[in-house]
């Protein structure tokens, strides 16, 4: 129940500015998550639903003898549900000894950025802490960086 360990954000990167980011998509929008807390990426499937007041908590999935709690990012970020039958991937993160799997559409790549994220306007209709760290440039568009510790705080 403690706040997630601080190392989920700042540590692990070499020079102060440069960070490794895992990029993924939800619908057509590109998102990014710092690589530090990520354990692995697995395919979505065979979810066992568990009732929870937070609708974005989808259920659980066994992973090598441990149970991963699944968080549907589309639901968390108030986006339309995936079409039935479309595939999805799970980004498994570990904080304070528990595994949380973020359900995303497709993981695209790993990139390095040293840019300071530009703040994003607060999205209306979202409860809890703002889950975004800001946006950084990616290719010719902009990628939205997620703030995992904030997401976790929102779930406590």
């Amino acid at each position, binding site marked *: 129940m403690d706040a997630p360990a601080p190392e989920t954000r700042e540590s692990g990167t070499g020079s102060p500015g440069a960070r490794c980011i895992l990029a993924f998509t939800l619908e057509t929008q590109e998102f990014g998550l710092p690589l530090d807390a990520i354990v692995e990426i697995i395919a979505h499937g065979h979810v066992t639903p568990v009732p929870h007041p*937070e609708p974005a908590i989808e*259920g659980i999935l066994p992973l090598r*003898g*441990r*149970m991963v709690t699944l968080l549907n990012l589309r639901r968390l970020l108030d986006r339309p549900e995936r079409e039935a039958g479309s595939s999805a991937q799970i980004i498994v993160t570990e904080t304070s000894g*528990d595994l949380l799997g973020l359900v995303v559409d497709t993981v695209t790549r790993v990139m390095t950025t040293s840019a300071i994220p530009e703040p994003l306007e607060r999205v209306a209709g979202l409860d809890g802490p703002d889950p975004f760290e800001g946006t950084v440039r990616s290719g010719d568009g902009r990628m939205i960086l997620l703030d995992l510790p904030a997401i976790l705080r929102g779930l406590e």
Partner: protein
Amino acid sequence: MPDEGGSPPDRDGSRREFVSEAEEILERLSDGLRELERVFAAGTPHLEAVNTIFRETHSLKGFAGLLGFPDIASLAHELEDLLSRLRLGGALDGTILDLVHESLDALFEVLGCVRSGAPARGDLGTVSDRLRRATATLVPSPVSSLDGVDLPPGVLASLTEFEERRLRELRGRGRRLALVRLRVDTQRLEDDLAEATRRTGEMGEVIATLPMAAGPDGGVALELLVTSERPLRPDDWPRGLVSGIREIAAPGGHVAAGTPGSGGPPVAAMGEPEAQSGTLRIPVSRLDDVLVRAGDLSIAVAALEGGVRAISERDPEDRLMRVVDPLLRAIATRLKALQRGVIDARLVPLEQVFRKVGRLVARTARAAGKEADLHTLGADTEIDKAVMDALAPPLMHLTTNALDHGIEPPEERQRAGKARRGRVVLSACRRGPSVVIDVIDDGRGIALEAVRAAAETRALIAPGKEITRDEAWDLIFRPGFSTAGRVSVVSGRGVGLDVVRRSLRRLKGAIEVRSVEGQGTTFTLTVPISLALVPAIIVRSMGRRFAIPVGSIRENLRLDGSRLRAAAGDEIYDHPAGPLRLLRLDRLLAGRSSVEPGGEGRYALVAGGGARRTGIIVDDLLGRQDVVVKPLGRWLRDRPGIAGATDLGDAGAVLVLDPEALVAGANDGRARS
């Protein structure tokens, strides 16, 4: 148990599961019997072999009883009686051995019938009768008396039947006998005691550990009753653990006096030392590592089995699969034996925790101005070390409560026509995969009216509302019932019972209470023998599978549609033992994702006692399986009714339910408990 008994038992899964599990027990019984034959023929002591068979018979009885095969349970019961006479020294002979063989044959045969679905009655009854007659002819053998042994009467009285017999046997072989007084530090009591016991075991045998009145300066005094071949000296133990040794009886010598027939050979002739089985002390975590690995391996094997099954179903003629399948099954069986072996290695007798409670009684009673004795039964019942450790606080709590609130002051007892000294009894026995512990006192019982008034004051019930006994028993476990502090308003119990119930739930166990005003109170605790592997029934409901720990299920009902009726928004089932409230899992566990509503609801698993007694409706019973319960992440850990999840090696995780909490949540009207 299901009203229909064993005749048309639940079709498919659960019957097959029962048969294969029961056959495994019978296989082990046969092995045990072979061993017994061997030692009997060799003329060597057969107590160990009898003990082994006894234990297996006992599990078979519990298991058959639990799953509703009364004929098998009753034969096992008769066999158990016979074996327990043998354990107490009844003379073993060829006729008895034959009878045990015949019992096993009959059991194998009836299992075959259960497997094929054919009705089988006849034979079991006859064998049961013969067992009963044979048991009657067995008298516990006379053993050498303890004449000439100057054992303080208090010590002799506190020995269990087993300890006393062991003492007589060893005296019969001319061992020395001594009381070794230990000085142990309260802080490190368990460690010191374990250390002292281990050291003593190297020199002789500890017959019993006897608590003494508390020593001065906070230390605790204990005495070990020890038999040994050589005289013992305090410096045989390290760190001044031993403060004194009192020789009770010299070697051999006068033990034979007045005991014809056991004159026994002189000590010198004993020559051969007893075959000492070596003991090894290792950290529990090492065993746990092995267990976790075995568990992971069995998940992998289950996945492999699933694959083979899928291929075989598609092509029953697949030659490779026909070769692989039996091999795989053999691996699975051995793996199970391996897991069981490791789990057994973690088992310890409940004795330790009973003694811990025992040490507390005299002081607590004195502090409360009561006079009371503690009696323990079944202290040799084995249970997983972790479960035993976790049982200590609730048992101490219940015992303190019994002394504080249950047992009356001596004068009041006398006025009520009771003995001045109250009795608190701790009694344990194994029932299938569970251990059942009763905490019994002969005090004033729980006063219904007092519970009602207290509940009213705390707004747990509407003012002026009448309550039934079952409702009262339920109320005393409610959080908030006892927050009034130390001053006990209730003339019975109620101090922190919600805490006790919560700790039992954590152990995947249950607690129930029965009380008669003026006569006493009994708390019954049921806990699984081990938490590493929890025996569970796998059920299907809403198109999904769930695992329900066997320990929290009281009955397993096949629903008869004509006995169902609706009342006040609930479904009620006309059960022979009274109306039973039914509960649908979809009401409690429905997620947002679309689930099949309704379902066939062919079975109900009954959980909860008294007012909480409730049947959980499920569509199908898929089988019985030992599951490794994995904790859920912190976001889901406190979901009511869910104890964790397990991986059965095929697609997805299976939720492990906590029926007590489900039933409690439904009864309290909200999903809290």
